[in-house]
């Protein structure tokens, strides 16, 4: 079969790829036809299923990719991993504590970063101040932001629609809401900061 025959055969067909990678686990990705290049992966429309395939998740994700609704992918990811969206700050806490995820977030225009090292967990801001804790649990209990123990008071984390998204590093920007539950969106904007989580 040559190229002409192939392009004739796949005319008006979509190509979706289901794959597995030893580093990243299972994924489903939508492709796009680009002239002279054939089918090209759309990295924004790539959804990771994790290293272990959960029953029912593949069909859901496949449909989601096929129907092209890529927003709120994070919500979906939590759903298929059996986590509750309302508890997603908890889910992130769990991720940091249990699977040593690296977390970036912003609060009052300052950036903060939680990273794991051999000697413990470090909580750093963009001015270079850092606090070192022996484990992630004590970081959440004792870390201070602007002199206050804010970090444990976050009540929810909301994915930003159409926000920054780094598919290669599998990071997604989140809004992290401190102290108050949602009332009106405009009021909350001031308290909300962005939140980037390394999805593992």
């Amino acid at each position, binding site marked *: *079969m*040559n190229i002409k*025959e192939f392009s*004739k*055969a*796949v005319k*008006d*067909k*979509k*190509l*979706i*790829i*289901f*794959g*597995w*990678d*030893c580093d990243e686990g299972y994924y489903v990705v939508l492709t796009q036809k680009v002239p002279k290049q054939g089918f090209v992966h759309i990295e924004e429309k790539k959804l990771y299923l994790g290293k272990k*395939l959960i*029953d*029912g998740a*593949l*069909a*859901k994700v*496949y449909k989601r990719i*096929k129907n092209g609704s890529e927003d709120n992918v994070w919500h979906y990811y939590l759903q298929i991993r059996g986590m509750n969206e309302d508890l997603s700050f908890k889910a992130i806490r769990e991720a940091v504590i249990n699977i040593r995820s690296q977390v970036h977030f912003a609060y009052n225009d300052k950036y903060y970063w939680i990273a794991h090292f051999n000697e413990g967990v470090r909580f750093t801001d963009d001015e270079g101040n850092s606090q070192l804790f022996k484990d992630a649990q004590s970081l959440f209990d004792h870390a201070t932001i602007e002199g206050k123990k804010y970090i444990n008071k976050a009540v929810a984390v909301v994915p930003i629609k159409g926000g920054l998204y780094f598919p290669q590093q599998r990071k997604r920007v989140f809004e992290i809401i401190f102290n108050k539950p949602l009332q009106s969106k405009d009021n909350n904007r001031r308290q909300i900061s962005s939140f980037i989580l390394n999805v593992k």
Partner: protein
Amino acid sequence: MGIDYRMVNIYVDAGNNLLAIAVGESKRMVGAIVELDIVNEIRFPYSDLKLETVLKRALQQCFSRTQRLQRRKPLREIFEYKRIFKGG
């Protein structure tokens, strides 16, 4: 040598029928990755369970054999695509 990755190409037509084709190594072009001559067909309507079973099976078929010269049977393959997609 262990397999580091597997890929299944899923072609979807306007009627939602699927062709799941596993990839493997080409015999003619050593090292090149081509679609194998194993076609898993899923006709619409299908259940979630069937979709998963077929896709998982297709994933297992990856690299299960090396694809021979494709040039010898060009029409058969294109016929395969046409038959499934057009229902002829």
